[in-house]
């Protein structure tokens, strides 16, 4: 009887750990594609675009664009960065016009490059997200900075079977990017 109690307690602890720590080990990689040492983005405000949903291999990752913008918004708010957010994905000329109208200093354009959300598989493949972040001058449309922000992550024990997506590791990645570029 006592051993059953211990077993139940162990299961409860594992469940609790899984719920509390939704994200397992996460790796973040930021690759600078264009950087301007003379450009200071500290204290600046942004108009943040909404990326289009990621599509590859004949399928579209529904709401991946919205989720990416939401994760980016959370990271920017956490770091006290003032921003206005686009309500839908737009083409570049429309986004630039909206950005100019918003009165923000720069446009922050996000584009999903990769969104791998595999089901729990025999090979224990990690989830992977990659977003291209570009800081643009809304008046000229010139790209001032461009970085590839990439993350891989695995779920915790309880979230192992599907309750995990690239957005869960992108939060850390955006946080790191903000620390490196906007502070």
């Amino acid at each position, binding site marked *: 009887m006592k051993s059953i109690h211990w077993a139940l307690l162990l299961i409860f602890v594992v469940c609790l750990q899984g719920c509390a720590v939704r994200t397992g080990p996460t790796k973040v990689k930021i690759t600078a594609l264009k950087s301007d040492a003379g450009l200071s983005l500290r204290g600046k405000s942004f108009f943040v675009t909404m990326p289009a949903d990621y599509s*590859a291999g004949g399928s579209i990752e529904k709401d991946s664009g919205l989720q990416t913008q939401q994760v980016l918004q959370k990271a920017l708010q956490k770091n006290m960065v003032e921003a206005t957010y686009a309500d839908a994905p737009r083409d570049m000329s429309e986004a630039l016009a909206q950005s100019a109208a918003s009165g923000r200093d720069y446009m922050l354009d996000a584009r999903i490059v990769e969104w791998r959300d*595999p089901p729990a598989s025999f090979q224990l493949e990690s989830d992977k997200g990659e977003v*291209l972040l570009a800081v643009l001058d809304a008046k000229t449309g010139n790209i001032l900075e461009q970085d590839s922000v990439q993350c891989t992550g695995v779920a915790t024990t309880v979230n192992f079977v599907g309750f995990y997506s690239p957005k869960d590791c992108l939060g850390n990645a955006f946080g790191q990017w903000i620390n490196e570029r906007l502070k």
Partner: protein
Amino acid sequence: MMLQSAAREVRKFLLCRSNADKAVYFSNILILVFILNLLCGCTPQRTATETSAPGHISQAMHNGRSIWVSVEPPLPEAFSDSPGAVAAQFSKWMLPQAGEVLSGSGLATAAQSLTAARQNGSDYLLMITLHKWKSPGLSGIAHEASLSVMVMDVSTEQIIIQSDLNATCYLMAVVSGMSTRDCIYPEVEKWKRYAFESENTSIKKRINTEGN
């Protein structure tokens, strides 16, 4: 050896009489399939590839310069990737040879790309035309990628590189994280050896002669 073992299990399964025995052998086969899948997942996934010649390279790109990458219309049939994502992926692949790389967010004609490249102060314009971009599905069992790469010197407007890259990758594992981009990536890496300047100019000269 694994296949022999699998065949032996199937033979036993067919010969055994009772349902209980059949259940045991059926579960053994399932375990074997599971192990085979695991092993296949660990083996290289590119089992057959086709490599094209680097094409015509009249002048290699200088290292450390700025490149603008864009995808030109039209898109191939059944293309399900995003042109902006493909351009972004190629941008990353141009590192570390390129000093900086920028890419367009969607499809752009040569004239539009040249304007954007100039506006952003890029030295080279790299235009990609996708001829084939297929993932495994009902129409096939392989990733197939076929594309043309054209590099223009922005200041002179001269085309300095024109190449075709092709790759076909058959998947070994049932569950695989490979994409069409992963399939073409090694060909891009090979192409970069000729497209960017390096100390080994003799190889480039030879390739140019073959390309012409």
